[in-house]
C-alpha cells in the first residue's frame, strides 16, 4: 500500500493541483468533487504544477519542500498557506509543515492506516537520523477495527464531509482532537474491516507556475532521496498536529518491523515521484516483507539487532526466506544482558524473554502483554530535551518492537496493535503536556485492550454459544483462547456437550486446554492429530481459533489446523472459526511456505515423556538430515 500511497502523494498533488488552484480558502471546503474532477484531465501538467507549487510556496512551505513530494494540497499554494498559517490556531507550530507533508502524502492514497509517513522532516537532525535507513512499505492491515487513516483524513476534512471515506484534505480545516475521537468511538467496538479510502482524495492546491513547480518537485525528490523514514498513522486532527506526530523517527531496526508491516514509505515515495501520473493511479503492490535469503538485508538487520542469534546450521532450503536460528542461544545471552540494555525498558525486556521461553503464547495473550508493557514504558517515559514527544516516543516504540520481534516474530495481532499505538501517538495534539499525552496514550491502550480484545471476545462468545446444542460433540485443535471461552461459557449455561481436543506436536498445547476444561468439569476426549480421522465420525461441530484471517478469507492459524479442517470437511462436519476482528489482515498468502515461523528443530527430535524415542539424538547436525519445525501460525487454508 505504501508505495502506492507514496506515489499517489507524489502524483496526486500534481493532479489535484489543477483543482486546487482555485484561490479562495473557501475552496478548501468545497469538498472532493472539484479537485477530483479537475484533476483528471490533466495529470501530466498537474505533476509539474504541483512541484512548482511546492517550490513557489512561501517560506513556511519552502521549509517543507525538501521534505517531500507528496506534499499535498496542504502545502502547496503560497497565499493559502500564509492565510492558513495565520488562521491556524496554536496547534500549528513550525512543525506543521511536516504535518502537511504527511497529510499530503496520505491524501489520495488508500492509506487508511498509518504507515504512510513521509519522512519529510525539514530538520537536519531528522535527516541525519533517517539517512541510510531502509524503509519498508508494508501493506496496511485490513481490519484493525481501528479506523484507518481514512478516518483521520476525513476528520481533517471539512466537517461537511461524511466520515465514511472522503479523504480530501482541506487545508484550512483543523479539527479538534475530540472530533477524531468520536469517529474512533463509533467504530471502535465494531468488527470492522479496513475502511477504504476513495482512490482519489485530492487535496486542494493552488496553481503555481510550471517552473516553480518543477523546481519544487526536484527539491522534494532530493529531499526524499535523503530521508527515508518509517511511516506512522496519519493524524487527522490538524495538519500541523499530524505532521509533528507523523514525522517519523528513525527506525532502529528495520527488518523486524518491516516484516510486520509496520513500515513504509520513503522508498516508495521516491519511486512514486519518478513515475508518470498514470502509473501512480494504479495500485502499487505492497513492498514485500523481509526475506531472509536476501543477504544484504539480513546483514543490516543483524547489525542493528539487540538479540544475538546464530543461524541454524542445518537450514531447510525451502524456507531460506525465513529466519532460522539456533534456539537456546538467545535466552541466556539476553538474561546476561538484562542490566545493560538501556534502550529497552525492563518490562518490555521481560515480555520479550517470556516470548522466547514460551511462557506467553497465543495471539491475544502476546498482544495484551505487549500493550501492557508499552503502557508501563510510556508511563516511565520522559521526553528528552529538544525532541518532540511524538517523534521520540514513536522511535522508542519502534525499538521495543524490533526487540520483541527478535525475540519472537510478531504475530499479526501484535502488528495491528502496534500500528494502532503509533497512530495514536501520531494523533496526539501538540497542545497536550507530556503527562497529559502519556495519560492519553495509556488510556488509549487500555481502551484498545478492553474493546478490541476483551469486549470482542465477549461478543464472540455470546454469539458462538448459540451454535452449541445439547448432545453436541465439539472438536477443537490446540489451545485457542476464544474457543476456550466459548466452551466454558456454554458449560456454565448448562449445555450438555462433549469436547474432543486434538493436539499436535511439538507444542502439545492441547494438554493445557485439557487441564483447564477438565478442571471446570467438562467431559473431554483427547487425541493426537493423527487420530482425527478416527474421531471425526462422532464429532458434530468443529471450533477453531485463528491467529489471523486474511483478505480472501484464508485462516492463518497454528500448524495442523488445516488438517483438522480438511478432515472435517471430508466428514461433512461444520467448521466454525472464531477470531477477533483486530486480527484481520489484508495480506495475501497462498500457502504456508510464503510466510511462517520456524521453531526449534530440537523440539522435534526430542519427544517429551518418551525416552525410548531417541532415534534422532545428535542428528541435528548431520548433513543430510534436517528437522523442520513449522510452528506457530503455520497453516492457512481456504474454502475447501
Amino acid at each position, binding site marked *: 500500500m505504501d508505495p502506492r500511497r507514496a506515489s499517489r502523494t507524489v502524483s496526486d498533488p500534481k493532479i489535484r493541483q489543477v483543482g486546487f488552484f482555485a484561490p479562495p480558502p473557501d475552496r478548501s471546503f468545497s469538498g472532493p468533487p472539484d479537485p477530483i474532477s479537475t484533476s483528471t484531465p490533466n495529470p501530466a501538467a498537474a505533476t509539474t504544477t504541483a512541484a512548482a507549487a511546492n517550490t513557489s510556496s512561501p517560506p513556511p512551505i519552502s521549509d517543507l519542500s525538501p521534505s517531500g513530494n507528496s506534499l499535498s494540497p496542504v502545502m502547496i499554494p503560497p497565499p493559502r498557506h500564509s492565510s492558513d498559517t495565520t488562521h491556524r490556531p496554536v496547534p500549528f507550530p513550525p512543525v506543521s509543515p511536516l504535518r502537511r507533508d504527511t497529510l499530503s502524502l496520505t491524501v489520495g492514497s488508500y492509506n487508511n492506516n498509518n504507515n504512510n509517513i513521509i519522512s519529510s522532516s525539514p530538520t537536519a537532525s531528522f535527516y541525519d537520523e533517517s539517512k541510510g535507513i531502509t524503509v519498508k512499505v508494508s501493506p496496511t492491515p485490513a481490519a484493525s477495527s481501528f479506523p484507518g487513516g481514512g478516518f483521520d483524513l476525513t476528520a481533517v476534512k471539512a466537517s461537511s464531509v461524511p466520515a465514511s471515506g472522503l479523504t480530501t484534505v482541506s487545508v484550512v480545516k483543523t479539527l479538534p482532537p475530540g472530533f477524531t475521537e468520536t469517529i474512533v468511538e463509533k467504530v471502535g467496538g465494531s468488527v470492522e474491516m479496513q475502511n477504504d479510502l476513495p482512490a482519489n482524495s485530492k487535496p486542494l492546491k493552488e496553481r503555481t507556475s510550471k517552473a516553480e513547480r518543477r523546481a519544487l518537485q526536484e527539491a522534494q525528490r532530493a529531499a526524499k532521496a535523503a530521508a527515508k523514514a518509517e511511516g506512522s498513522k496519519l493524524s487527522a486532527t490538524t495538519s500541523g498536529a499530524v505532521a509533528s506526530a507523523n514525522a517519523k523517527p528513525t527506525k532502529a531496526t528495520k527488518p523486524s518491523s518491516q516484516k510486520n508491516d509496520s513500515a513504509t514509505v520513503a522508498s516508495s515515495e521516491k519511486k512514486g515521484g519518478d513515475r508518470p501520473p498514470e502509473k501512480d493511479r494504479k495500485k502499487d503492490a505492497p513492498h514485500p516483507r523481509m526475506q531472509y535469503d536476501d543477504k544484504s538485508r539480513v546483514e543490516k538487520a543483524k547489525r542493528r539487532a539487540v538479540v544475538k542469534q546464530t543461524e541454524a546450521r542445518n537450514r*531447510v532450503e*525451502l524456507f531460506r526466506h525465513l529466519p532460522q536460528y539456533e534456539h537456546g542461544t538467545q535466552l541466556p545471552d539476553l538474561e546476561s544482558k538484562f542490566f545493560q540494555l538501556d534502550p529497552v525498558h525492563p518490562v518490555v525486556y521481560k515480555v520479550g524473554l517470556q516470548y522466547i521461553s514460551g511462557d506467553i503464547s497465543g495471539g491475544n495473550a502476546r498482544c495484551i502483554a505487549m500493550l501492557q508493557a508499552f503502557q508501563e514504558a510510556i508511563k516511565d517515559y520522559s521526553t528528552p530535551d529538544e525532541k518532540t514527544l511524538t517523534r521520540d516516543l514513536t522511535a522508542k516504540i519502534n525499538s521495543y518492537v524490533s526487540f520483541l520481534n527478535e525475540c519472537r516474530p510478531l504475530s499479526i495481532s501484535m502488528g495491528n496493535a502496534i500500528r494502532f499505538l503509533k497512530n495514536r501517538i501520531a494523533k496526539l495534539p501538540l497542545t497536550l503536556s507530556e503527562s497529559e499525552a502519556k495519560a492519553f496514550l495509556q488510556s488509549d491502550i487500555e481502551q484498545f485492550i478492553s474493546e478490541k480484545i476483551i469486549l470482542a471476545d465477549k461478543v464472540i462468545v455470546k454469539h458462538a454459544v448459540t451454535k452449541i446444542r445439547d448432545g453436541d460433540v465439539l472438536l477443537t485443535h490446540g489451545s485457542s483462547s476464544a474457543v476456550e471461552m466459548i466452551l466454558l461459557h456454554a458449560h456454565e449455561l448448562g449445555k450438555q456437550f462433549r469436547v474432543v481436543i486434538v*493436539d*499436535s*506436536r*511439538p507444542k502439545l498445547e492441547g*494438554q493445557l486446554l*485439557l*487441564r483447564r476444561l*477438565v*478442571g471446570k*468439569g*467438562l*467431559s*473431554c*476426549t*483427547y*487425541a*493426537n*492429530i*493423527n*487420530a*482425527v*480421522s*478416527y*474421531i471425526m*465420525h462422532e464429532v458434530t461441530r468443529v471450533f477453531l481459533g485463528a491467529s489471523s484471517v486474511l483478505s480472501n478469507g484464508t485462516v492463518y492459524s497454528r*500448524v*495442523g489446523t*488445516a*488438517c483438522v479442517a*480438511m*478432515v472435517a470437511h*471430508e466428514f461433512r462436519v461444520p467448521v466454525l472459526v472464531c477470531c477477533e476482528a483486530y486480527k484481520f489482515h489484508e495480506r495475501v498468502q497462498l*500457502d*504456508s*511456505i510464503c510466510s*511462517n515461523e520456524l521453531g526449534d528443530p530440537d523440539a*522435534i*527430535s526430542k*519427544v*517429551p*515423556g*518418551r525416552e525410548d*524415542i531417541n*532415534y*534422532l539424538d545428535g*542428528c541435528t547436525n*548431520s548433513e*543430510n*538430515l*534436517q*528437522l*523442520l*519445525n*513449522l510452528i506457530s501460525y*503455520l*497453516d492457512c*487454508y481456504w474454502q*475447501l
Partner: protein
Amino acid sequence: MSELAVGNIVRRVLHIIREEDHSNTRDAVEGFRLSVGGDNDYIVEQDHLNLSVAAQSSLCRPSLHALLERSPDSATTYFTATTEDDSEEKRKSLDPNARSLEFRRKVISAVNDLIEDINTCHLVIAELAVEHIHHNEVILTFGRSRTVKEFLCAAKEKKRSFGLFVAEGAPKYQGHLLAKELAARGLQTTVITDSAVFAMISRVNMVIVGVHAVMANGGVIGPVGLNMVALAARKHAVPFVVVTGTHKLCPLYPNNPEVSLNEMRSPSEVLSFEEFSDCMDYRIGTGAPQLHVGNPSFDYVPPELVSLFITDIGGYYPSYMYRLIADYYSSDDLVIQQKPAS
C-alpha cells in the same frame, strides 16, 4: 483382528494346496482321457478325483491361470468314466502313497516359494522405483516402511536426486528412525511433524507410503494419520502411491474398518500418565470419568484416495485389486470356519 497378514498367508497356503490338488486332478484327468477306454483300474480313484475336480470347478471360480491352462476337453470327460477293472487295484495301493508324497512335496516347494517371495518382495518392488521417481522430485512419506525405504534407496542408487520429507508418524515416531536410516544412506531428508503435512504437501510431487494391509476393494489399512495425508494429497492433486507386497493383500472387504480393523494402543503414548493424573485430580468429587484418551493404531484410507499400488507383481490401480484376489486365494477359504469337534 489386527494382523491381517497372518490370515492372508494361511489362506495363501490353503490356496496353494487346493491349486496343487487341482492341478493333480487335472493331470490325472488328462491321463485318463488319454487312456480312455483302457484301464479301468483308475476309474474308482478317478471318480473321486473327477468328482473333486468337478466340485471345485463348480464351487470356486477358477483363477486366470487355471483357465488358461485348462484344455476344453477335460471338462467333458468327467462323467464318462466307468468303473471296472480290478487290475488297477494293485496299482492303487501303491500310488496313493507316492501320489500324496508327491503332492506334499509340491505343496512344500510352493510354500517355500511363497516365503521367498515375501522375503524378497522389497527388491522386486524396488526395481520399479526408477520408473516412478525422477530427478529433482520431492517425495513425502509417512511413518516407516521397509518397502518404502528400499524403494527410495533403489532410486538413489540409480543416481536420481530427490528430496524427501518424512512425517514422523506419532505416536510411534517411526518416521524418525526412517529418516535417520535414509540420511545415513545419503538421502536429503527432512523430518516434519504430522500436523505440518498439509503445509508441505503443496511442494511435494508424490506421496509414497507403505501400509499394513490392502483390502479387497483397494482400500488400505495404514498407520494412524494416513487418511489425513491421503486427503491432503488429493486436495493438492499429488499422487498417493502405496508400495506393498502381495502378501498384504487381504481378500476381505472392509466393513466399518475404523472400528473393526483397528487396534487401540496404550493411551500413555498420547497423554503421559503424569499428565493424565494431573487432569484427573481436578475432577475430584464429580465422580464420573470425564477424560477419555484414544490411541488408535490404524487408519483406513478409501480406494478413491489411492492413486497407485506398486506390488511385486507390478503396478495396479485400486479398482483392479479385487482381481488379484482370485489369483492368490480360493473362495472357500475366505471365511475360515472352525469345524465343531464331533
